[in-house]
């Protein structure tokens, strides 16, 4: 089965600092998703990456998928207290013989705290 490892497991940064969270897969990623979760709440979809080398940005958050499609990074610029939460990467299962995809794997999560 596909496993996703995230690093670091937790991160404490001063407000205004930049930070990067990594998600590494043991197999080729067919679709990589980044989510944010606040304690006790549901997941908020941030971004989805599919193509090797793809990069997407939303406000101060940028996510990249490497050319080999086995690693993704999430970069937050000028962090704010509102960025605090748990960031999860999720990956599509490789296509079935019928060609369908199903989301089955999530990373272990990175807990981010931003100190004002």
């Amino acid at each position, binding site marked *: 089965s596909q496993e996703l490892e995230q690093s670091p497991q937790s991160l404490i940064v001063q407000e205004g600092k930049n930070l990067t969270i990594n998600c590494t897969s043991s197999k080729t990623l067919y679709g990589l998703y980044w989510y944010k979760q606040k304690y006790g709440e549901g997941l908020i*979809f941030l971004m989805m990456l599919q193509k090797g080398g793809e990069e997407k940005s939303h406000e101060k958050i940028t996510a990249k998928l490497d050319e080999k499609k086995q690693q993704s990074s999430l970069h937050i610029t000028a962090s704010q207290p509102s960025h605090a939460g748990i960031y999860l990467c999720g990956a599509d299962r490789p296509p079935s013989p019928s060609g369908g995809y*199903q989301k089955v794997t999530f990373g272990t999560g990175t807990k981010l705290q931003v100190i004002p």
Partner: protein
Amino acid sequence: SAVISQKPSRDICQRGTSLTIQCQVDSQVTMMFWYRQQPGQSLTLIATANQGSEATYESGFVIDKFPISRPNLTFSTLTVSNMSPEDSSIYLCSVELAGSSYEQYFGPGTRLTVT
């Protein structure tokens, strides 16, 4: 995007009882998923529920313990049967929006505590 609601938002149940969690989406979706997030852990997929077919369960999850209904394209239920304290988790439903992006969205979750 999709707006997903879940009921109840939280519950405290006694062992041996069952709880049915409802998931309502504001648009028609083909694929719905149920996840479990145990305390301090990441999400684990329980099953995929497509309208018009039986739910597909992941390894370690069985229909007798987690029966799922999917009567239409906007609604699904997950029942946690014969509960034990080990079932204490957050249960989330999720939908996939068809289209070029195949983005997946999650409900707010149901926090279940079994005593």
